[in-house]
């Protein structure tokens, strides 16, 4: 029988034991009666001979080895009773712990979802992200592969089981009577095999599907359910997208998602369409757009794969210098590491901050336990006087604190359940996998461990301290409010200093991030984002001449400009902060370079009126106008940074630049610089002003531009009006991504806003808890020293003196805490310097402001107990004590 079974069958054992001893007793009585002694006398004698029946039973139980367990059960029961007897104290502790554990759990569930969970593919540790290094740039500069590069890497490597390509794109499809723009990923036919995921329905792609004419698609589960009514016979059926017929190969399993992140593709196309046409992209070595994922052969390391692929890259660089000259080596990383790369410092910072909150919570509860414990001195003294060992008392106290921390943990889980959705709502969307954050088994184990560790942490000091009470003195003093001695005071002071210091660190961290965030918002982006509504329209390039395509936009912009309330309207690409961009090679006339050595900068497209609508200032020359049309002189406009970099001592106007964009359309016309415009923040408010050049949209129909409309009208109404105008021109075109420039800007600052917001929440919690801790200590001190204060006042001390005595103590402790906090912050804030924008980690304003705030709060926290002490009636105090 195991000990646990024995514990449960305890009642049966007890009955048996009782029956066995009773049998012995009765037999003994019977023997005595038989030898002639009267029954009552026999019973009396036997009872004498037996001695303590309970003692015998206890000995038997002890021999069976269940005693320790029973006494723990007993201790737990005692602890529960004790905590129930002081519900105020218990609820306070549990609430404080719940805040600490809840916040920690919520953040951990994010860390767990993003960083810790393995990728949802077969043997995910063998999946790697593959790219090539651009050696013309400093540091690590990954450059995507082109199809010909990818095919060569696929054919020539010796270390990979499979290597697959993917590139995001869109497809237009007629759904429920309306043209819809869908996220469609173009993938090499082996992608699903490399990931190790088979379709739930139908067949996988095959090598044949990469050949021209074999257009096939794989549907996502959700898309199949919503748009095809989960048709079980979908495989092999034909669907129409972008005016072409595709065969449905199959449907992927429900949970399948690739690439992981937003926006998730609803279908995957084979690369057959890229292989079609007269100059297919699958043959363009300069078309560097592919994402590549590969699976290592068993036993091959990331380093070996890197060496293997670098050899191929070097060979290709020699073979094709025009396109590959600077790409002489490969970049390889485990897929998961690559995916979560950028998010790691932020999550680490949040987890560090929340751990500090938890530590502060521990110190706070430890202070509460210590204060309460010293009121229980008599109880412990009595227990140890009647034989309880120190270990038994420590065990009792630790059990109480563990019980508290488990209750706190349970309440914390409930709190985390509520917190996670709120955090996800505030969360910037760029963090991959974060939307899967939930309280799963791993998180529950984490909570369990955290509860045990916090319980031991905040319980250990008080338990160790209180169990040292000498029984005799404690019993003697117990009639009065008993003082725990100097050492206990020192411990309690230490706890308050710790809390203040942690509060200080968190406040400084939050202050720095806040200030940095404000600095970001102060940045002038170079355009005026207010009152600009934007939207995109997917006009198909195929089946329309350039003339028709451009005419559509010309008419659309004219119609929108005529709408009431519209100040100006135009179109351009890419919109700042939209995370779209293109970098294209060019050369400046009169400065001949080899084709592989050409500089490249960001390319922009603009319709007439774009700069005016965006309020991007014109510095020199003229903006684009009607003369920069399809048949006009090829022109180009550069920004100030471009002019400064490439024409430092020359007038850029009138210079000639040849851009290699729109290869299919134009024979790389030599363009004349007709204007210089102001710089704009393109990738984010915290990045530098990058050199950029703009082509007239009519002369470079590369991609659909974003429509921009400056208006004071309500954005939603305006977006509807734009959509109506577009459909009025052509009812087949899908209208999507309706937004405002301010929204783009808001999104670009989402990450620092989220970090500053969350850290501020933690800092506020820390400040409140630190204040409670200080208030608790001083109140307790006043109670403990009532007699002393009474005596002092009886001997002539003024109320002001008493007030000062208590307040001084509070201020002293806070000052020490603030000092320690500043020292620790000076070290720790260096870790977040990468997240700060134009704020030094030792910003004196923040440090001074935080110190002042903390001191004000601690004076406030000290005032109530100090006043209470000053109001004591000396006579009454002395009588009571």
């Amino acid at each position: 029988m195991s000990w646990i079974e024995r514990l449960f069958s305890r009642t049966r054992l007890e009955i048996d034991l009782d029956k066995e001893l009773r049998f012995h007793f009765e037999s003994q009585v019977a023997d005595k009666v038989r030898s002639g002694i009267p029954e009552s006398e026999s019973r009396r004698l036997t009872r004498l001979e037996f001695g303590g029946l309970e003692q015998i039973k206890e000995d038997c139980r002890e021999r069976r080895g269940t005693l320790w367990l029973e006494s723990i059960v007993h201790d737990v029961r005692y602890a529960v009773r004790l905590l129930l007897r002081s519900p105020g104290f218990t609820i306070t502790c549990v609430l404080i712990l719940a805040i600490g554990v809840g916040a920690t759990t919520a953040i951990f569930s994010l860390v767990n979802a993003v960083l810790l969970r393995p990728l949802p593919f077969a043997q995910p540790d063998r999946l790697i992200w593959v790219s090539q290094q651009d050696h013309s740039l400093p540091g690590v500069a990954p450059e995507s592969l082109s199809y010909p590069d990818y095919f060569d890497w696929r054919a020539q490597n010796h270390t990979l089981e499979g290597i697959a390509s993917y590139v995001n794109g869109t497809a237009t499809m007629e759904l429920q009577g309306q043209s819809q723009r869908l996220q469609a990923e173009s993938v090499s036919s082996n992608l699903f095999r490399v990931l190790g995921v088979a379709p739930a329905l139908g067949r996988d792609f095959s090598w044949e599907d990469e050949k021209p004419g074999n257009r096939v698609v794989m549907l996502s589960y959700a898309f199949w359910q919503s748009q095809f009514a989960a048709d079980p016979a979908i495989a092999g059926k034909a669907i129409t997208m972008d005016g072409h017929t595709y065969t449905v190969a199959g449907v992927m399993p429900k949970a399948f998602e690739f690439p992981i992140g937003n926006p998730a593709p609803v279908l995957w196309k084979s690369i057959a369409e890229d292989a079609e046409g007269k100059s297919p992209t699958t043959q363009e070595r300069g078309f560097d757009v592919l994402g590549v994922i590969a699976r290592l052969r068993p036993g091959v390391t990331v380093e070996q794969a890197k060496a293997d692929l670098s050899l191929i890259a070097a060979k290709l660089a020699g073979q094709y210098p025009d396109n590959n000259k600077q790409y002489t080596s490969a970049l390889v990383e485990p897929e998961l590491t690559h995916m979560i790369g950028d998010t790691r410092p932020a999550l680490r910072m949040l987890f560090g901050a929340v751990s500090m909150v938890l530590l502060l919570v521990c110190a706070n509860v430890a202070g509460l336990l210590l204060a309460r414990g010293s009121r229980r001195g008599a109880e412990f003294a009595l227990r140890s006087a009647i034989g309880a060992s120190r270990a038994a008392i420590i065990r009792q106290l630790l059990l109480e604190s563990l019980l508290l921390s488990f209750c706190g943990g349970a309440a914390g889980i409930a709190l985390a359940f509520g917190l996670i959705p709120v955090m996800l709502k505030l969360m910037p969307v760029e963090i991959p996998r974060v939307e899967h954050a939930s309280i799963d088994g791993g998180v529950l184990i984490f909570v369990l461990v955290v509860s045990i560790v916090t319980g031991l942490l905040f319980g250990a000091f008080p338990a160790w301290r209180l169990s040292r009470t000498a029984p005799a003195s404690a019993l003697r003093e117990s009639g009065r409010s008993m003082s725990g001695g100097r050492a206990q005071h020192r411990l309690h002071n230490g706890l308050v200093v710790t809390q203040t210091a942690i509060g200080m660190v968190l406040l400084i961290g939050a202050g720095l991030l806040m200030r940095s965030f404000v600095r970001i918002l102060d940045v002038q982006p170079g355009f005026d984002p207010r009152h600009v509504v934007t939207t995109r329209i997917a006009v198909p390039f195929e089946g329309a001449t350039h003339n028709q395509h451009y005419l559509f936009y010309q008419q659309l912009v004219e119609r929108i400009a005529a709408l009431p309330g519209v100040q100006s309207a135009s179109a351009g690409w890419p919109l700042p902060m939209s995370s779209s961009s293109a970098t294209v090679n060019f050369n400046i006339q009169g400065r001949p370079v080899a084709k592989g050595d050409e500089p490249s900068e960001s390319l922009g497209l603009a319709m007439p009126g774009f700069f005016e609508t965006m309020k991007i200032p014109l510095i020199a020359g003229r903006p684009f106008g009607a003369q920069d049309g399809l048949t006009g002189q090829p022109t180009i406009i550069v920004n100030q940074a471009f002019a400064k970099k490439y024409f430092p001592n020359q007038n850029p106007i009138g210079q000639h630049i040849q851009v290699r964009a729109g290869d299919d359309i134009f024979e790389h016309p030599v363009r004349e610089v007709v204007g210089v415009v102001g710089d704009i923040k393109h990738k984010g408010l915290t990045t530098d002003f990058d050199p950029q050049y703009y082509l007239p949209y009519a002369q470079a129909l590369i991609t659909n531009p974003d429509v921009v409309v400056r208006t004071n009208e309500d954005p939603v109404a305006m977006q509807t009006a734009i959509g109506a105008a577009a459909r009025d021109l052509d009812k087949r075109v899908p209208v999507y991504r309706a937004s405002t420039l301010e929204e783009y800007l808001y999104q670009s600052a989402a990450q620092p806003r989220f970090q500053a917001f969350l850290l501020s929440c933690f800092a506020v919690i820390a400040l409140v808890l630190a204040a409670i801790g200080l208030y608790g200590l001083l109140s307790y001190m006043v109670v403990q020293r009532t007699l002393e204060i009474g005596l002092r006042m009886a001997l002539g001390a003024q109320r002001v003196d008493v007030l000062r005595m208590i307040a001084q103590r509070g201020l002293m402790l806070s000052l020490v805490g603030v000092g320690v906090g500043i020292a620790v912050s000076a070290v720790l804030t260096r870790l977040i310097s990468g997240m700060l924008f134009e704020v030094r980690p030792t910003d004196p304003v923040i440090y001074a402001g935080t110190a002042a705030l903390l001191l004000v709060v601690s004076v406030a926290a000290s005032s109530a107990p100090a006043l209470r002490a000053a109001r004591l009636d000396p006579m009454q105090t002395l009588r009571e004590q």
Partner: protein
Amino acid sequence: MKTEARFDLPQGTLDLLIMRVVTLGPIHGYAIAQRIQQMSREALQVQQGSLYPALHRLEYKKFLAARWQPTETGREAKFYELTARGRTYLKAETENWKRLTDVVGLVLKGTVEGVL
């Protein structure tokens, strides 16, 4: 009341005595105490306070097995039996005991003759 000299049992010997008595067949606690008393010619009287904890420890260590069955008077009593493990243990311990008493006897005899 009995007046004969009684012995304090050395540590561990009670276990041996109990197991020895139990070898004779299934037997309940009261009878074990009686039996030890008889076999030691009233010199050893086992107290309930030592007997039952010892019995429970031996049962816990699986040297004894117990089951409930009626006695000749019809009452239910807990009967103890030696297990195979207990038998081996008893055999080894009995030999140890014999060797120990022989050796102790030898030494004491020498001392008595040599010194006194």
